[in-house]
Structures are given as C-alpha cells and as structure tokens.
C-alpha cells in the first residue's frame, strides 16, 4: 500500500461546549494538492491550527509519513511542528515581517539551520568560515525562490511595502524556505485579482510538481480550487460532508446544499 503523506484520523477539537471539528478523517498525498473547502465557520482554519500546533486537538491523531518515519503531529507543540516535523503554513491575513526586508523574511525562515551553523551565535560572532558558507547558501536559496516569484529586484525593500499580491506570494515562498514536507495554505487567493490568481496557480503547481511537496489548501476562490486541486474535502459545521475529485465535488448535491441551502 502506498502511504499517504498525511493521515488525519478522528480529529476532534472542542472549545468548551462548542465542537469545532467533529471526528474528522481525511488524508493528503505527497505531490498532490488537497483542498479543504466549506462555508464560513465550517472549521477549516481550526483544522490548520490543529495540524500546525497552534491548537492542541481534543482527540484523534494526525500522522505525517516521511520516507522512513511516522510522526504524530499531536505530539509537537507550536513551533516544533515547523522545526521538527517540517509542516509549514501561511495565514489568512498575511503575516509577513513588514518592517524587515524581503530577503530578511526568507532568512528568518531558515533560522534553525543558520542558528546551528552559527554555533548558537558564538561561532557567528567571529565569522567562522562554516557559518559564512551556510549563510551564503541560505541567501542562494532565498534568491532561488525570489527568482521564481519574480521579486529578486525588490529583495532589499521592506516586505510591508510590496503590493498585496506579491506579499501573498512572498509568504508562500517564505514557508517553502523551511523546506517542508507539507505546506498548509490558508486562503492564498483571498484578495487577488484574476491575473494574480493565475500566477498563484502556477506557483502552487510548480511547488507540487517540482518540489514534490504536499499542499493542503483552504480556499474560497473556486477558480483556484477547481483548477488545481487533485482532491477536495468539504467541511460543514466541523464535519466532513464530502470528499472526491474537483469535478465530483461540483456536482455533489450535499456540497450544493451546504453552500446554497435546500429547496423547500
């Protein structure tokens, strides 16, 4: 049996009496794009927050299958999910470091690697050659990603000064700079115009095909979802009501009902 990259089993998240996610199970493939859609308040972002350690799930398990190990993401607390397990995410409202330069944003993403190389700062203070080399490599990686999103010429400008669409793309490549196995994108197309959405699709397909990174996508923009998703999971009130390919989703009566209501 080919293992899935991510196996979510019976995930439940309760806030007091409110059940935000109810016994949710789904899986995501390596080098596939899995979309999570659903009406507002369906619990999509909560799923992300559980996966990336911002919330501690009430019950259930989330397994990340790497080449030779199987990690339960529930065992990692906040920053360790990114550091140890290699799960990166972006946010619904962009969270860049607005007063730091574009390049610095990408360098912060490579913090743990560079921190080790700097010998917990002591080697770095004396410019040890191994640290200088690592830092150069990190700059090269940043440059590689900037070339891909076409922002190399603005590398030294403040991230907060970029146009909105570029900030979205920058946040995605910043997440890619931690070299993740799974990339969780929370509404990356929100607020983008048609041209920017098309560019975003291209970027996501590139990450999927070239980097072989699994992508988990929350999105309201159906043009994005339908065009690039390999697999769609539909949530409503914290429950999975449908899963299948993009085409099947479009014609599913349950999904239409959840979005538009039933005819009386």
């Amino acid at each position, binding site marked *: 049996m080919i293992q899935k990259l991510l196996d979510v089993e019976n995930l439940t998240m309760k806030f007091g009496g409110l059940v935000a996610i109810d016994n949710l199970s789904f899986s995501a493939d390596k080098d596939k794009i899995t979309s999570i859609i659903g009406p507002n308040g369906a619990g999509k972002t909560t799923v992300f927050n559980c996966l*990336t*350690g*911002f919330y501690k799930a009430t019950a259930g398990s989330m397994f990340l299958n790497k080449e030779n190990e199987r990690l339960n993401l529930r065992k990692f607390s*906040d*920053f*360790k*999910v*990114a*550091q*140890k397990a290699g799960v*990166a*995410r*972006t*946010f619904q409202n962009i*969270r*860049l*470091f*607005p*007063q*730091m*330069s574009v*390049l*610095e944003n990408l*360098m*912060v*993403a490579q*913090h*743990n690697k*560079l*921190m080790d190389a*700097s010998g917990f*700062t002591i080697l*770095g*203070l004396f410019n040890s050659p191994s640290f200088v080399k690592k*830092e*150069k490599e990190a*700059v090269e990686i*940043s*440059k590689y990603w*900037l070339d891909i999103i076409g922002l*190399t010429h603005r*590398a*030294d400008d403040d991230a907060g000064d970029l146009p909105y669409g570029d900030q979205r793309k920058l946040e995605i490549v*910043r*997440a890619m700079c*931690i070299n993740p196995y799974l990339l969780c994108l929370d509404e990356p197309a929100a607020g983008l115009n048609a041209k920017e959405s098309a560019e975003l699709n291209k970027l996501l397909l590139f990450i999927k095909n070239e980097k072989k990174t699994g992508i988990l996508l929350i999105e309201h923009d159906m043009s994005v979802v339908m065009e690039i998703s390999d697999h769609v999971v539909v949530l409503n009130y914290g429950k999975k009501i449908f899963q299948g390919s993009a085409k099947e989703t479009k014609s599913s009566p349950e999904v239409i009902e959840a979005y538009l209501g039933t005819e009386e």
Partner: protein
Amino acid sequence: MGKKFFQTSIKDSLFTGLIALALFGPIVGLRTVAKNEVLEVHPKWFIVLIIVIVCTVGRFLTNLYVYNRDQKTGIQSSIGKSISNFLDTKGYQIALTAIIFSVIFPFLPFTDRYLMDIAIMMLTYIMLGWGLNIVIGLAGLLDLGYVAFYAVGAYSYALFAIHFGWSFWICLPIAGIFAAMFGVLLGFPVLRLRGDYLAIVTLAFGEMIRILLLNWYQLTKGPDGLTGIPRPSFFGLPFKSFPDEGEQTFHTFFGVEYDPMQRIIFLYYLILVLALITNLFTIKIRRLPIGRAWEALREDEIACKSLGVNPRNTKLTAFAIGAMFGGFAGSFFATRQAFISPESFTFIESAIIVAIVVLGGMGSQTGVVLATVFLIGLIEVFRDFESYRMIAFGGAMVLIMIFRPRGILATRKPTITLEKSSSK
C-alpha cells in the same frame, strides 16, 4: 491667508492665554512663604503676566507660521525637512564623527573636570541605552525595569570587590553574568506577555529588586549603601597621590606628576571602551540569525512560530544579553562612585533609559547617542534652574515626538542585502 484666518488665530491665542492664566496663576502666582511659623502668600503677578503674554503671543505666532498650511513651504518647515533629511541619510557619518570626537575629547582645551563628569555620565547612559536597545528596539519587549539589572551589576560588582578583593577585570564579567541570570529570571515568567502587560510586570520587577536591596540589610547594608568599593586600577597600577612604601602607582610608573584628572580620564576611556564594545556587539549580533529572529519576533510572533523559530529561547537570550550589558554598566557605575545605595536605582532611571531608546528611534544605535546627548545635556544645562529641569526634560520629549514621531533616527537598514552578498 484670509482675514478670517487672522481672526480665528487671534481668538485661539487669546483662549490659550486664558488657559495659561488659569494654570500658572495659582501655581506660579501664589507663592507661600513660611514667616514666623505662619504661612504668608506672596503673590507674583508680574511673572504670571509675562508667562501669559509669552503663551498668547507664542500661540499666535505658531498659528501664523507653523499651522498655516499655505505657508507650509516656509523657512521653518524647510529647515525641519533638511534636518530630517540629514539625519536619515548621514547616520553613518554622524556616528564616525561622534566616535572621533569622543576619543579626543579629554584632551580638548576646553575640557575640564565638570565636562568630563558629564561625559562619563552620558556614556554610561549611552551604554545602558544600547543594552536596552537589544531588548526594546530589536526584540520589541518593552522593559520598564531595566535599572534592576544595572543595580544587580553594581551590587554584585561591589560585593565581590569588597569581600573578596578581586580586581575590576575579574568582577566585571561576574557582574555581567549575574545580571544576565537575573535577566533570564525575569524572562521566564513574562514569556507569554506582550505590550502593556509586559511593561507592568517588568516595572514591578525593577521595584522588587530595589526594595530587596533596601531591606536585605545583612548583605546590602540597606539604605546606608555600600561604601569603600575599590577604585579601578590601570592594569594593576592604582591612581593615588601618596603611594604606600614600595608601591607602584600610575604616576610613578609613567614618571609623570600626580593629577586627579588622570583617574577621571582613565574612567572616561574605560566607559568609552565598554560602550563601544556594547555597540559593536549589538551591530554584529543584529546580523546573525539570533538578531534577525529578535526582530522577526518584534514584528510577528505567530509568524515566527509557524517558521519554527523558538520564541522562548529567542526572548530569553534578548533579556539575558540586554541585562548583561546593564550589569557591565552597573559595575562601572559602582567603581566610579565608590559608593552605591538603592537610591541610585529608582524607576526614574529606567524611565530615562527607555526614553533614550524610544526617542532615539527604536533599534537605532546612533539614535541612542543623539537622544542621550540631547536629554542628559538638557538636564545638565538646566541644572542651575533646579525646578525647571524636569519641564525642560518633558518639553524635549514632546518636541522630539512632534518633529520625529518615530524617533530621531528612525530609518532601519536591512541586516543582509542581496546586492552585497551576491557581488562578493
């Protein structure tokens, strides 16, 4: 500029005059004097009149020339703009000039004992400002109890030097380590706090340390303070006018006349070197991963977590390193004064240091220097007018905030640039 504008300006300035009268009338005008055990009121209406006239006319003039938008291109704003421009672009040159000036300062013809004392005090504040800049400017943690680390450094230096007789160069790092430990001690409980809440807790921490020093009589001698802290020596050569039998002192060793200024000049260079070390260290560490993580943490903690940056370690190192430099400055303070008591470590000291960092422009090293020279210099200039000192201090802050709302030097340079690293 129409007639109507003129009328409103006059109305506005008359109103200002009324407010000035209401404020200054009772405060300045009615002075009570104790005479034969009876309080007598000595009215001083003339001074009140002058103040009211100054306020009215001043308001009228500012209305005409500053707040009049048609004239915004006038001389005043162009001067302001060119100063701003100068500060924004010439930060590096200002820094270089300042360093050269401070190196030759003790040997300038007009330099006397009084100026040297002020310079040493300013450098102490600059060093504290640079230390606190790591915590506030880089890591964005508003620490209102910074003086606690200054106190810990001073007391640990004093206690080690008095009881064990260790020299300055041994006690200095020990004091730094002690202060850093207290930094971590403060850091742990406040890891989850931000902004106002953090400010309150750090404020309380600063007071706790002061009260501890005040009440732990066996160790700190409480309000009496510690006396007889050894003076620093020039690499083992003490500064003494009458050396003991067979003892080498600074002036006998170098074969010069004894002059009390020698010790002052030595202290001056000592604090200059300590401050510059603080500065170099901060400039360097800002470009290392930990420095970038501090700034990232200031910008967005949640994003940091999502990128796998450990916020706990990052914050604790900021607290520890900032505190360490506070401790160094504290040991210098102890050895310079030869006497320390809890009174030197009150909240107002913390407030001044925070003001220096904020007014200088958060995170700007040169800004700290400019703000210190401006604020401390102003306090000194007004030393003779005792009761107006704090007014001048407050006024200076208000002025800086009006003309440079983000601090004197607010421009931030990226810690790494693509052009530079790819051209190498």
